[in-house]
Structure formats: structure tokens, C-alpha cells
């Protein structure tokens, strides 16, 4: 016993001795990017690119790397799938500590906020603004930066996501996006003479009606509680978070009121969510017997999961897709999700420029955007893809609520291009997102002991406190 105690003391003493030795060791921060006067000098570089693409998307990417190399044969793209989005973040987070980060990576805004604590991400403004001419291997030239037409071609909500970091600078380029859409059982709606709701008030009336037609149903399923909360904030124009100053602003009357309203909906069995129902709400939507739902709000990229399985070679019902309900249909708001690309600082500026050229190629190439969208079910980020021959004829025009449900979903997404919003990104924005999701779950389902307002008030306060503790 004594010896063990002694041993620990020894260990601790040893540790303290070393503290002074290692207290300041990290100096792996890469130099700030500065545009060389010559632009891209044609030098041989290898670019590492981390993403989460499955096998079918990697095929598309490989095909377009071949195209890219016809223009820039000396830029070698070495890409790899690093598991999920979180895996990519964790991997890069570790690599940054020794300066091993890749050149380009799939990212979500909160990832970039994290990397930027280490000042690791290149701000793209200088690159975008550059009017240097770059000569390509086929003899043609292109402008290093983005032309005004190219910028205007981006769906604005997607493009502006790159500037949500509070310092006015642009750090990311959108690659492919998804949003939330309302899936509804078109066959059921037509049989009962119902129309899909455009506002939340209509939604409430519709749920009541559907409950009368089928008393054992839960008319609406909303997959993501967090998206629901954040989207409602945006639709009401009430504060959620801010990238600067006080970060967590979501504890306010408007937000408490809509949460209280949805709690009533939940108690009347109008609505359920993924966590509250214990499974994907698409399962209820697809169900053919027992408890089922007739509407489902979920990711536009998951359209095929909302389609019922075929029975005797035919779909039991047709799926309709439309924009989610709004507070003010004249000023619609829908969330924007899906990967963007960020570029990391490197000692060799040519590597940064080469990375930019590749990022620019992927995000502005109509053919790539079209093919990527068709294979993945994600929405392209530039509008001109809608006019692309193949994309239009082989994809959008075939859209229906059965075999071509992914196309139908993409079509709806492209039509609501003005409605996309993005939330501020800062160190702690993902915590806020987690917390409001949990808050929704709690306020909709918890036992209120008779005082709903007090329970909701406490839940909001706890969520803000937790956010502050995590971010502090």
C-alpha cells in the first residue's frame, strides 16, 4: 500500500518536472496565403483531398479528375474517403497539430470554425477576386478567380454559406447541397381531396382533418428536431445564434411559443419526430398497415428512403414532394445542408493555388455538378445545371413520385432556390445545434407537472447554460 502511494507520488512529481519542458512546443501554423505574382506556374504538385464519397461518387470524381488533368497535367489529385463527416473533422483536427493536414477537405461550417482556431484554413477572397490569367495545357486560358457570371450562377444561399464566420471573409465553396422537403402521400391526398399545406396554420388544420379520416395515424413526421427548431427561428425572423458577440440567442418568447405550440400538436398525435417515435419517420410514411403517417419532412437527398417498397411490381402509393410549410409563404425559408470544400494553408503557395483551381473546377463545372447530382441525389450548387441537356432530359423531365423520385426531389429543391438560409458558424455552433434538437425533444415529450410554460422556460435556460459551458 505504502509503496503504491509512493509510486503515484513519484509519477506525479515526474510529470510536473516535464511540464516546464514541454509547455510550449506547437508551432505548426502554416504561413498566411499570399498570391504569387505569376499565379500558377505549372509546377508539379500533389493535392490531397479528404471526402466522404461512396464508391459510386468516387467513380464520378475519378472521371472528372481525368478531365481536369487534361487542363492541368501537373496537378495530381490524391483523394480518399475518410469515413463520415465527423471522421473527416477528427482526422484533420489531429493532423493539424503536426502540420499534416490535407490540401482540400469536405467540410461543414462548424468544422471550419474549429480548424480556424489553428488559423489553418485559407480565406478565398484573394483567389476569387484574382484576375490573373492561367494558361492551361490545351492552350486555352482561364481567369484565376471567379467571374461575375460565375458568382451569379451559384444559388446565392449556398454561396453565402462560405461567409458565415463572423469576420466577413469567405472560407468555403459549396460542392453539393441538400435541404428539407415535405414528402406527402399523393394517392391519399387525391383520394381525400386534400392539398399539401403551404403554412404551419394550414398544416395544423390539415392534421386535424387527416386524424378524422384515419384516427390511428400520426399525420406528420419530422425527422430532425434540430432542423425544425432552427428553421422555425429563421422563418419567424427570431434570433438563434450569432457568430459575433453573444453567441446563443435562442432563448426568447417567439421561440418558446412555437415550441409550446408544437408540444400541443405532439400531444394530439399530429406530429412525431425521429427521436420521439424511436425510428426513422420515413418508416411510418412508408408503412402499409398499423400506425402510419401521410406526410414526412426529411432530407431531400434521402428521397429513395421515403418511397414505399413495391408490392406486386407496383408502388402502393405515389409520393408527392413540395416545399416545407412556412410562416410567411411570401418569404420562404428552408435549410441548406451538405458538404462544402475548404482549402488549407500550405508552405508552398503553388499547392494552395492548385487546390483552388481544382475546387473551382468541381464547383463551377456544369457537367460535373450535373452528374454528381444525378448519382448522389444531392442538389447542384449552380443554376445553369438546370439547363444542361443531359440533366434536363435524362433526369429532371423524368421526375415522378416513383422510380424517379430523386429527380422529383432535386426539381423541387432547384425551384425554391431563393429560400435557402444558412446559420452562423463559430466555435460552438454545433453545440447550439445539438442543444436545440434536444430541447425540442424534451419540450415536446416531457411531463410538465401541470405548468408547461415553466417547464419550457427551464428547458431553454438549461440549453443556453449548456451551450455556454461547452463553448466557454
Amino acid at each position, binding site marked *: 500500500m505504502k509503496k503504491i502511494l509512493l509510486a503515484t507520488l513519484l509519477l506525479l512529481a515526474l510529470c510536473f518536472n516535464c*511540464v516546464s519542458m514541454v509547455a510550449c512546443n506547437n508551432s505548426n501554423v502554416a504561413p498566411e496565403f499570399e498570391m504569387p505574382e505569376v499565379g500558377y506556374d505549372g509546377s508539379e504538385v500533389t493535392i490531397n483531398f479528404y471526402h466522404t464519397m461512396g464508391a459510386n461518387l468516387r467513380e464520378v470524381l475519378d472521371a472528372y479528375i481525368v478531365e481536369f488533368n487534361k487542363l492541368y497535367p501537373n496537378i495530381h489529385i490524391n483523394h480518399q474517403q475518410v469515413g463520415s463527416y465527423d471522421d473527416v473533422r477528427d482526422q484533420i483536427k489531429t493532423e493539424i497539430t503536426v502540420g499534416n493536414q490535407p490540401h482540400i477537405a469536405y467540410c461543414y461550417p462548424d468544422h471550419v470554425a474549429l480548424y480556424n482556431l489553428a488559423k489553418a484554413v485559407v480565406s478565398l477572397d484573394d483567389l476569387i477576386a484574382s484576375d490573373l490569367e492561367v494558361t492551361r495545357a490545351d492552350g486555352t486560358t482561364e481567369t484565376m478567380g471567379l467571374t461575375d457570371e460565375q458568382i451569379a450562377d451559384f444559388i446565392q444561399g449556398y454561396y453565402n454559406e462560405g461567409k458565415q464566420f463572423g469576420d466577413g471573409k469567405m472560407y468555403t465553396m459549396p460542392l453539393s447541397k441538400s435541404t428539407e422537403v415535405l414528402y406527402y402521400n399523393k394517392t391519399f391526398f387525391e383520394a381525400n381531396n386534400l392539398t399539401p399545406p403551404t403554412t404551419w396554420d394550414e398544416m395544423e388544420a390539415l392534421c386535424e382533418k387527416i386524424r378524422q379520416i384515419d384516427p*390511428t395515424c400520426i399525420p406528420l413526421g419530422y425527422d430532425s428536431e434540430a432542423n425544425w427548431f432552427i428553421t422555425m427561428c429563421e422563418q419567424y425572423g427570431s434570433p438563434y445564434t450569432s457568430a459575433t458577440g453573444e453567441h446563443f440567442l435562442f432563448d426568447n418568447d417567439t421561440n418558446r411559443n412555437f415550441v409550446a405550440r408544437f408540444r400541443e400538436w*405532439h400531444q394530439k*398525435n399530429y406530429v*412525431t419526430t425521429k427521436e420521439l417515435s424511436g425510428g426513422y419517420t420515413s418508416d411510418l410514411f412508408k408503412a402499409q398497415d398499423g400506425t402510419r403517417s401521410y406526410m414526412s419532412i426529411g432530407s431531400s437527398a434521402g428521397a429513395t428512403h421515403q418511397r414505399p417498397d413495391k408490392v406486386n411490381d407496383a408502388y402502393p402509393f405515389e409520393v408527392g414532394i413540395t416545399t416545407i410549410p412556412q410562416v410567411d409563404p411570401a418569404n420562404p425559408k428552408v435549410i441548406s445542408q451538405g458538404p462544402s470544400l475548404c482549402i488549407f494553408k500550405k508552405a508552398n503557395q503553388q499547392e494552395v493555388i492548385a487546390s483552388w483551381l481544382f475546387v473551382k473546377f468541381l464547383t463551377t463545372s456544369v457537367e460535373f455538378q450535373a452528374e454528381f447530382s444525378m448519382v448522389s441525389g444531392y442538389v447542384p450548387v449552380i443554376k445553369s445545371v438546370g439547363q444542361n441537356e443531359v440533366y434536363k432530359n435524362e433526369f429532371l423531365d423524368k421526375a415522378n413520385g416513383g422510380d424517379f423520385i430523386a429527380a422529383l426531389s432535386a426539381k423541387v429543391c432547384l425551384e425554391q432556390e431563393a429560400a435557402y438560409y444558412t446559420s452562423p458558424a463559430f466555435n460552438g455552433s454545433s453545440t447550439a445545434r445539438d442543444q436545440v434538437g434536444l430541447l425540442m425533444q424534451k419540450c415536446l415529450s416531457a411531463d410538465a407537472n401541470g405548468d408547461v410554460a415553466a417547464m419550457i422556460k427551464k428547458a431553454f435556460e438549461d440549453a443556453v*447554460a449548456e451551450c455556454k*459551458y461547452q463553448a466557454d
Partner: protein
Amino acid sequence: MVESKHPWKAWIYLAPAIVLLLIFTVWPIINTVRMAFLEGYSSMSAVGGMQYNFGFGNFKQVLQYKDFLSCLTNTMLLCVLTVPISTILALLIAVCLNAIRPLQRLLQTIFFLPYVTNSIAIGMVFAAMFNMVGSAFGSENEIVITAGIINNVIEFFGGTAVNWINAGSTYWANITVMVVYIVWNALPFKILILLGGLQSINKQYYDAAKVDGTSRRRVFTKITVPLLSPMLAYVVITGFIGGFKEYSSIVGIFGDDMGPTGDPRRLNTMVGFIYDALANKQGRASAAALILFGIIFVVTMINLYVSKKKTHY
């Protein structure tokens, strides 16, 4: 034990282990201690050039966390419940397996299967067994789609379904599920170790007992358990050390929220807290790890003290 003529010989035997441990375990621990005392340390910001003050700020923050006590209670509770249950069950199974004749091979093979089962499958099974799918469970107009296999069994025997892990479930229902899951997870390893240990007991002891006509109970308590006691001590001590680090099993059942819907973090543990902080608050995570270290250390000392008295070498 014998005094070796060459005391340095022992160090040669230990050299490879010590060298590797110094590099890959002791050095990271030193770094952990360092981060724990740098107030507000974050490895990302450190790369960005941020400087930190030396002090106890991280420890203070950990102790001030509003759910710190609940993390601690959950950790202790799960540990105290699961270690004895799994050890006793594993001992019984190992002894029984050793004692039967027909079907012995088949049953042994079955007890080996968990080692080739994918860890994802293990998590999935449990969700399927206890998960209740439906809406508004607990309110008057509830809609239950399925009550889960466990509840089906309970209802079959005339009981009423229990809300184990879903929205509105009670704390003790959650804990019961966790205990069952953790015990289940721990069993194969413990059976393997104890079976190996049983096989190392010399059969001559049993032969001698037979000649003396010793009763079965006495053979078990006077021969099997004492001779197996080093292995039992091992299983209990490492069980406690592992038990205090419980985390992934809770995520396996309840997901990253570590609690039923509507009551997140209800089942959060010390390591759960450390994981959260590890994302970008490495200083805070390290401080929590040192606090946890202190607790495990005290418990292990008590364990060692007790086992030294009871273990027969």
C-alpha cells in the same frame, strides 16, 4: 519467492515492455497532466499560437459542471452493479462448462462466438430488444407500434410492458437495461479468462479431495475458488478499472445523447464528459481524466488490499 543472484536480470526481462510503455503510454500521460494544468487549453488554439496560464482552472471548471455529480453517480452505480454480477455469472458458467460431458464441445463453441461477432451487430440487437416504437408513449392517447422483444416476452407471461429506453422511461428502467447490456458484453471475456484459469488448476488437488471424501461444497469453496483466486482478483480489479471508464456501451444503447429522448445526458458518465470535452477542450478533458484517475486509484487500492488478504498464490 527467490532472490535472484542477478537482480539486473529482471530488468532485462522487463526492458522491452518498459521502453515501449515510456514512449507510448507514459509520455502521453505526462502530456495529459500538462494540458490539465494549462487553463482553458485547446490543441487547435495552441497551434494557432494561443498562450495559456498555469493553474487549476480546468479542475475548477470540471467540478463546477452542473451535471458533474450525476456523471459520477452513474459511473459508480454501473460499476458497483455490473462487476459482481458479471463475475459471478461468468464463474458459474465456466465451472459448469468444465463439469459437463455431452454437448460440452458445442456449448464451448457457442461461448466463443461473441469473439467473431461484429461490434455493430451487438449494439443493434439491444436496441431491437428494448426499443419501443410509437408516439406519445405515456400519455393517454398513446400509439405503440411495437413494444420490443423483451416486452413481448413480459406480456406473454402476463406482465405489463415496461418503457425501457424511450421518451418518458424511468431512470431505473434505463439503469436496468444498461446493467443487462454491460454484463452481457463482459461475459464472454470473463468466461474465457476463468475457463483458462480453471484449466491451470492441477487435477491432483481434486484427486486428493476425492480420496479424503470432501463434500462438493467444500471442494468448491476450499479448492476451486482459492486456486482460481488470482484470476478472480484479476477479473474483479480490471472489471472495476474498466467499469469506471464505461462510456461506449451507453452510446450503444442511447446514442450520443447518452439518455432517453427528452432527458439527454441522464446517463452521462465521467468518460462521457471527457469525450465531449476532448472535441476542443483538451485541458478540461485532461483535468477530468486526472480526477477520474484519482477515484479509480483509490478503489483499486482497496481492491488490491482486500484481494491480497483473500488471494491464494
